[in-house]
């Protein structure tokens, strides 16, 4: 049968954000896929170099709207390690509390999106309604629903009162009850299970070799979680388990996220009940000592990495962000292969893509002499044409 290339995106009803997928199909079956990025680049890393560390916290928060706390925590942890600051216990606990509440809200949101892509819109409406409860809790704690802005260098900005603690425990009970119901539903409703099981298979070895992260990796049976493997904040003191599934498909990813939400609810309960007393932050210097730091964080979508290089002034010299979605793209291509066209939105939604998070600047490194270069788009096109033997003026990306 003849192979046909079809473009999905950059603007497509199945995609929530602009990304271009070039799918090679043979009949209905996907044979190959190609991901093209760069439609949503905002130049955040460059912008970070011209702002002070305090201003950068709020800039980092705006990398992503769902995991805003992940990016600030990751950045702030790096800066704290550069300054040699020790955050007070209470500050760390509040930071972790917001982190886990964020994970709950992100997974609730994802469950709704997955249900919507699978054609189960009632579940989508119900999960999003219940998600409002956790959004309200975050608003009570931090003063805003989406951009919590609770982190500051050296701790957190707001303390937790007894009234707030009670409200959190109350809200968490409700969320627990609802999630138990959805666990039951998501694994027993025959039409939903039939739609998601066996779709987007990612075998264990492939997940490992393609460096998948987060729930995508854990759904392939690998128990990898930064909170356990390389504990940051005070995760080494908190009892929790890493959730995995062995089915390696979209159903596995649903199960992992549901289990993780239940685990997060337990962590929130533990944190609120065992909140230590004391200060919530230490004073941070405006100028950061010269050096470089790498910070890792388990965001709801997977491992988030920030690299910060400081030069002794109040502005960083370089900030590099590796968002979890970027690490999951190679695995997505593997999942798409031998699937059907109708599965594309579901498979793509199953990695919980945040496309604008993953839009980063590219540096070309020569493997022979390790020279680094920043290239213009025109130069990349020229080199590509040369390597492909294209004539001048012909389309770089023929379709």
């Amino acid at each position, binding site marked *: 049968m003849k192979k046909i290339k079809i473009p999905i995106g950059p603007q497509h009803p199945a995609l929530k954000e602009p990304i271009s997928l070039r799918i090679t199909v043979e009949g209905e079956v996907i044979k190959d896929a190609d991901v093209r990025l760069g439609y949503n680049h905002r130049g955040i890393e460059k912008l970070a170099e011209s*702002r*002070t560390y*305090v*201003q*950068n*916290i*709020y*800039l980092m*928060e*705006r990398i992503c709207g769902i995991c805003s706390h992940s990016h600030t925590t990751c950045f702030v942890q790096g800066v704290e390690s550069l300054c040699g600051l020790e955050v007070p216990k209470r500050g760390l606990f509040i930071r972790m509390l917001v982190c886990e509440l964020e994970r709950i809200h992100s997974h609730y949101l994802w469950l709704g999106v997955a249900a919507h892509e699978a054609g189960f819109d*009632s*579940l989508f409406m*119900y999960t999003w*309604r219940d998600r*409002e409860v956790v959004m*309200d809790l975050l*608003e*009570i704690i931090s*003063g*805003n629903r989406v*951009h919590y*802005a609770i982190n*500051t260098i050296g701790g957190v*900005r*707001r303390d937790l009162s007894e009234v707030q603690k009670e409200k959190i425990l109350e809200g968490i009970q409700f969320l627990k009850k609802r999630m138990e*119901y959805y666990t*039951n*539903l998501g*694994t*027993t*409703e*025959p039409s939903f*299970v039939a739609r998601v099981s066996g779709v987007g298979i990612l075998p264990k070895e492939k997940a490992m070799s393609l460096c998948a992260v987060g729930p995508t990796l854990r759904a392939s049976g690998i128990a990898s979680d930064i909170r356990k493997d390389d504990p940051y904040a005070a995760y080494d003191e908190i009892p929790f388990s890493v959730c995995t599934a062995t089915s390696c498909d979209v159903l596995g990813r649903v199960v992992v996220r549901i289990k993780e939400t239940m685990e997060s609810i337990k962590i929130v309960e533990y944190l609120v009940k065992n909140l230590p007393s004391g200060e919530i932050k230490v004073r941070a210097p405006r100028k950061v000592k010269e050096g470089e730091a790498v910070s890792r964080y388990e965001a709801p979508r997977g491992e988030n990495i920030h690299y910060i290089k400081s030069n002794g002034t109040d502005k960083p010299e370089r900030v590099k962000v590796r968002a979890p979605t970027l690490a999951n793209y190679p695995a997505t291509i593997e999942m798409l292969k031998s699937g059907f066209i109708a599965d594309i939105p579901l498979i793509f939604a199953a990695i919980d893509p945040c496309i604008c998070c993953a839009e980063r600047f590219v540096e070309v490194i020569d493997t022979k002499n390790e020279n680094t270069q920043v290239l213009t788009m025109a130069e990349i096109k020229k080199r590509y044409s040369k390597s492909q033997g294209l004539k001048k003026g012909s389309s770089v990306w023929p379709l």
Partner: protein
Amino acid sequence: MKLRPGAFIPELLKHLFKKPATVMYPFEKLNIPKDFRGTPVLKPELCIVCRACVRDCPAFAIEIETLSEEEKKYKMTIHNDRCIHCAQCVESCPTKALFMDDGYELSTDSRRKLKIAYVYSRPKKTAQQSSEK
């Protein structure tokens, strides 16, 4: 894992007799929590023109102009169209001259209407205050 056809139906039927989850917004409003980060407001009598807020604002939304050096007259402009409501200015302010109110209905038909200017003189130190120090 045992499959149950129609597992969702009891929940759906239950919701037929429940009130809607949403509120009729312009007529009915949700409660705003305490310490909600609304819009920044200045108490001009407390400002000492240290410019800490100008330095720390991530959106460059605060501007302080000197109107007259002798009279110590200043003009602070808060650009609410640029403000990202992070409340860093409130935290940076050493005299607590800035605070966040609970206003969230900011939409207008023009950007210019969102600009708020305060003209004030820096409080001169009274004899009593100087002696306290």
